[in-house]
């Protein structure tokens, strides 16, 4: 056979090669093939699961109004606080006869009252309560037919009027009763079914700090073509909700729906321009220098905000989810390369039969791609199952840090499916690239002998220690670069991640070199290991580590370094948090609305209630905290009003930049000064002495930063001003929380019980309880990272076992000889275990060493640049030792098992 006919029939030959060459081998070693697919699928599965969970968490951030109004054309929301209702009239006048509907919305949160005194924070869901004008929304029926009407759900059958009697018909009077009842609430069909609620049912809810007995008026009508209203959505008539929340005359936002007709896009642009002009058109009292009264947003802008808010968090999670895949990359590389070695004889035969090298290379790449596809498909299944668990973990974190989400299941998404498959195939093809090249380079006259001479040399890169040191140096260089800055003050630490990658790769190379030196040192004459046959046998293989050993070490180094690095980050975080918590929570009792169950809560405490709490005879100091989200030009942040002297005394802030003098703490001189958190300072690049203008309902307020303190409450940052200013700017005294210091010797528990009894809608926490809860919520947010690390380590250990199996297979001739020389199976297994252990020790040692560097990068670059949190470095030695022991033990056991298997291999057997 010559090469010419082959070239004319390439696909046929590839198919033949695939059937006779690849598939046959796979079938001959089904366990190995299955393990390979499993490892790949685990890596892809983790990646896919995290992507799906992230997507679900983002999707749950939505504009609930859309379910009722159909998507509005745009909306305005205030830069801070709420919009006065008078804006509605102002805008209608400004719009003249332009055909546009204005939909005022008041949005707040509520929770069910607690069932037991022992439940933990966040265990009850947060409801989003929308206040809408329930009369006006009916005009939208022309635009979109709802599946039911708002008001006739409770009407008795046959109530239609048949006379023109002057008394109102039963249906009409039912309408008026429902409409005018200030406690009427509409709930989702989902909730109605889940809790057996029907029109007329009582539904007590905590609104602000009051338990309000609401009355179910019916189910929220939605467009049948649209998704159902989510369980946590509730709707009330706007003025009723305003009254219940003490926000009469105020709305959260105003949405705009253009009437149907031609040139919709142009009309919205015109309206948008008008709204933007009007935003800077200040009524009398406000300063002309003020910042705009509101922001104009299209639905796309708004959808993006939930996505932007959690982008950094999700990106970090995605990168972490790639850990298992990166470790898997090493393994697939090894496996395919091992296959090249095993099938070398066949390749040589094929070559001598005239099969061109590029065809052989293509067959190998094809094999890698098929492997990737198989791993990808299984990975999709694993990932989809995993996502159902991951979505809860991700949801919990998003809930605790960003906004209320009820995402409890992750839906399949075609983009993600394709992405996962592409990642899987790419990983596999990438890993198969060098083995394919090496297979193609096999000479036709290749000697068919086995042993070291013919074993795979491995990527030459892994032998270049010089390269390793160069990578370390590049890593250091990268660390001096700033993060990549996106809109809204988002920072992505691209350079830091690249540095971490450089160091991990360098450590992988160095791991092989460490193995070599370690084995030589152990095998030196006179060492305890230099005597026994088993030990000598084991060390003989690693004294001059093969490419395979080096790869196994590199995989382990990668997994251990990343895992240990994360452990160092989390440990440092934990230590820092505990320090911060014990400094911050110095007072005796902490009071908030019992409805506050998530980071996005709008539940506040009314002045009457907090005054009555503060007046308790045992209370000596009461810190009233007011808080509001404010929109700076670069992004949203949190403005807090409180007693700054109290803050200094009872929260004992750790200063990054301490105020230069006392003036901000003195009421007479505090005006125009703010304290900012580190996260704020990092995000907005503002330091002590810098000036900014705070948007408030009373206009823009110019302030100067007096100091920067460390804070781990949120990554969006916060500003603190004296509460007197806050109350004046926002025109209310609604408190988000209350911190109480009791008379020395007071019985804290009984004061707590008294306050709870007097105000059942308040949550009253003792210092120790809150410290515990803060730590619990914090640790809960890291639950997912632990899960991801565990998977990474599992893959690495499995990889070591895989390496040992491959090595022993290649040495099966040698093993037969050794058995013939009298070595028992036990001894051979022990030798394999020792070989594996040495490999593992090198991997773990270098991995741990690298983890110190990675930990530093994670703490001082990735975390600091992403979240703006400075952490005290803490190395959780116990955890790291545990990790080392676990990996070593697992490696030894796996290698021992492989050794036992290898010891009984027949001298000649195909696969």
């Amino acid at each position, binding site marked *: 056979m010559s090469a010419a006919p082959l070239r004319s029939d390439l696909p046929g030959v590839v198919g033949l090669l695939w059937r006779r060459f690849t598939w046959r081998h796979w079938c001959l070693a089904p366990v190995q093939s299955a393990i390979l697919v499993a490892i790949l699928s685990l890596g892809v599965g983790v990646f896919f699961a995290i992507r799906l969970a992230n997507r679900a968490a983002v999707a749950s951030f939505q504009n609930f109004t859309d379910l009722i109004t159909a998507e509005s054309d745009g909306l305005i929301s205030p830069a801070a606080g709420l919009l006065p209702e008078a804006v*509605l009239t102002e805008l209608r006048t400004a719009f003249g006869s332009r*055909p*546009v509907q204005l939909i005022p919305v008041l949005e707040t949160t509520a929770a069910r009252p607690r069932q037991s005194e022992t439940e933990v924070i966040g265990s009850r869901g947060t409801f989003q309560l929308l206040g809408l004008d329930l009369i006006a929304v009916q005009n939208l029926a022309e635009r979109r037919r709802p599946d039911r009407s708002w008001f006739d759900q409770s009407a008795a059958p046959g109530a239609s009027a048949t006379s023109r*009697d002057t008394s109102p018909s039963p249906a009409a009077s039912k309408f008026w009763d429902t409409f005018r009842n200030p406690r009427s609430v509409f709930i989702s069909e989902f909730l109605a079914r889940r809790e057996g609620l029907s029109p007329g049912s009582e539904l007590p809810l905590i609104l602000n700090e009051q338990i309000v007995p609401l009355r179910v008026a019916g189910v929220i009508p939605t467009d049948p073509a649209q998704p159902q209203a989510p369980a946590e959505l509730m709707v009330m008539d706007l003025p009723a909700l305003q009254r219940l929340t003490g926000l009469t005359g105020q709305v959260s936002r105003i949405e705009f729906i253009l009437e*149907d007709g031609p040139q919709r896009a142009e009309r919205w642009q015109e309206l948008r321009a008008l709204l933007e002009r009007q935003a800077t058109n200040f009524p009398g009292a406000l300063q002309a220098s003020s910042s705009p009264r509101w922001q104009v947003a299209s639905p796309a802008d708004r959808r993006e905000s939930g996505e932007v808010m959690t982008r950094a968090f999700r990106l970090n999670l995605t990168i972490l989810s790639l850990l298992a895949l990166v470790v898997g990359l090493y393994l697939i590389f090894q496996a395919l390369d091992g296959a090249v070695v095993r099938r070398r004889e066949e390749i040589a035969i094929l070559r001598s039969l005239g099969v061109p090298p590029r065809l052989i290379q293509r067959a190998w790449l094809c094999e890698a791609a098929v492997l990737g596809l198989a791993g990808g498909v299984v990975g999709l299944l694993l990932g989809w199952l995993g996502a159902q668990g991951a979505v809860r973990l991700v949801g919990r974190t998003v809930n605790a840090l960003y906004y209320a989400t009820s995402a409890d299941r992750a839906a399949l998404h075609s983009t993600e499916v394709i992405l996962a498959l592409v990642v899987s195939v790419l990983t596999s093809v990438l890993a198969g690239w060098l083995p394919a090249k090496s297979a193609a380079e096999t000479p036709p006259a290749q000697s068919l002998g086995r042993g070291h001479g013919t074993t795979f040399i491995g990527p030459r890169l892994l032998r270049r220690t010089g390269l390793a040191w160069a990578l370390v140096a590049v890593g250091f260089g990268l660390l001096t670069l700033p993060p990549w800055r996106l809109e809204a003050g988002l920072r992505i630490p691209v350079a830091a991640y690249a540095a971490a990658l450089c160091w991990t790769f360098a450590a992988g190379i160095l791991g092989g070199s460490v193995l070599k030196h370690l084995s030589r040192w152990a095998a030196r004459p006179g060492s305890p290991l230099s005597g026994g046959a088993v030990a000598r046998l084991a060390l003989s293989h690693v004294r001059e580590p093969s490419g395979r050993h080096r790869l196994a070490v590199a995989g382990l180094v990668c997994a251990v370094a990343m895992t240990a690095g994360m452990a160092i980050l989390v440990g440092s975080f934990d230590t820092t948090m505990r320090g911060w918590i014990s400094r911050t929570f110095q007072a005796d009792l902490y009071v908030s609305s019992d409805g506050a169950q998530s980071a996005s809560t709008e539940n506040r405490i009314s002045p009457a209630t907090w005054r009555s709490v503060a007046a308790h005879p045992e209370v000596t100091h009461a810190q009233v905290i007011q808080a509001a989200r404010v929109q700076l030009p670069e992004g949203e942040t949190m403005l807090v009003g409180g007693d700054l002297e109290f803050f200094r005394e009872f929260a004992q802030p750790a200063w990054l930049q301490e105020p230069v003098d006392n003036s901000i703490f003195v009421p007479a001189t505090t005006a125009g000064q703010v304290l900012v958190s580190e996260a704020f300072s990092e995000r907005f690049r503002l330091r002590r002495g810098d000036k900014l203008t705070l948007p408030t309902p009373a206009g823009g307020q110019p302030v100067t930063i007096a100091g920067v303190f460390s804070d781990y409450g949120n990554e969006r940052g916060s500003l603190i001003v004296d509460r007197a200013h806050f109350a004046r700017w926002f025109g209310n005294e609604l408190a988000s929380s209350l911190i109480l210091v009791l008379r020395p010797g007071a019985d804290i528990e009984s004061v707590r019980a008294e306050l709870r009894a007097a105000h059942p809608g308040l949550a009253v926490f003792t210092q120790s309880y809150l410290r515990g809860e803060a730590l619990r919520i914090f640790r809960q947010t890291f639950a997912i990272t632990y899960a991801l690390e565990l998977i990474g380590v599992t893959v690495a250990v499995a990889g070591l076992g895989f390496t040992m199996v491959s090595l022993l297979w290649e040495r099966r001739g040698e093993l037969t000889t050794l058995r013939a020389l009298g070595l028992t199976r036990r001894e051979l297994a022990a030798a394999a275990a020792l070989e594996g252990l040495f490999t593992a020790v090198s991997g773990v040692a270098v991995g741990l060493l690298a983890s110190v560097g990675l930990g530093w990068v994670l703490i001082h670059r990735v975390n600091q640049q992403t979240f703006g949190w400075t952490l005290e470095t803490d190395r959780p030695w116990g955890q790291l030792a545990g990790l080392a022991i676990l990996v070593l033990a697992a490696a030894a056991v796996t290698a021992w098992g492989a050794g036992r298997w290898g010891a009984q291999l027949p001298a000649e057997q195909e696969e």
Partner: protein
Amino acid sequence: MIALSLLRAAVPLLGGIFTVLLVGVVQAVDVPRKTPEGFAVPQPGTRFTFPRDHGNHPDFALEWWYLTGHLFETNGARYGFQATFFRRASPRSTAPSAATQGFGDDQLYLAHMALLDAQTGEFRHQERLNRAGWDAEASLQTLDVKNGNWSLRLAPPASGSAEPTLQLEGGIRAEAAFSLTLTPAKPLVIFGTNGVSRKAAEPTAASHYLTFTRLKVAGSLTWQGKVREVTGEAWMDHEFSSSQLGAGQVGWDWASVQLRDGRELMAYRMRRQDGTTDPFSTLAWIDRQGRVQHFGPSEYSWEPRGVWKSPASGAEYPAAIRLRLKDPETGRERTLDLQPLAPAQELNGAIGGIPYWEGACRVLDEQGQEIGQAFLEMTGYAATMQGRL
């Protein structure tokens, strides 16, 4: 459904224009000041002051400002338009309420707008419902009523004129818009006896009813993406009352006619459940000076001609109306044909839930000559209305 309830309670709303014309009914001895629900009852001898009485009367349960008219471009293109603003008071209640000035719950405002392009027969209409508050209100001082971006206001007299003018801003979604100035061409007519228009034997069943029978119209109409200068004539009713009609009626036919000789007439036929014409039906002539003369149902006839079936509601409406009546000026018997400019002028009741036909007609005499223009209203033909009334 809310608006349905509103309409149910406000049955005379749409056809109410004519109900107050029952001036022949003998005055009852005692007129109570309040209905049992606590709403005001029209009192004989009420002296109206203007512009105040063009405005809102929230003590009464029901009130509407009802404009219908005909518009022409200089090139002869012809249009019909309707712009109506209704107010309905909620039942008096002492129960706690969360209502505020911005979001009231004591009054609801409903409005209907419609436009007919007579060239193509295209008909557009829209309904809107709002509560009293920031987006719907009617002034207590003068005619100043609005609902969303629609409004009807009394403007100061144009220069060189003693008469005030009305300014209407209306439209249908973003498909049509009209900005019209309406100037009364004839004095305001106050229907009824002694300022009160009785409707039935019950002393509370009465209304105050004020009408501009002919308004000169000028302004702009935006339609098919083009701003068109238009002129024409319109009719406006303003009525407020607190009572409902009696049982037994299933619907009504009503027409306002503006003749080219400067006179107007209004006629209606109330249809009873048994198919007969209610004795309260009437026809009124308004002479060139604005004086009114009434005729009972035995003195004229109302003949439906042909059938038009609405594809939307399935209702079958008369395709045209023939009126046989006596001209009080000449004493001669006459025949007037009310010929719709297009058959499809039904408002589908998207929010109110009750479809009805209200449309522009030309008026033809015995020789088929066009001698005027009319607006015709027909209710109670849609199946959905049966049993509701």
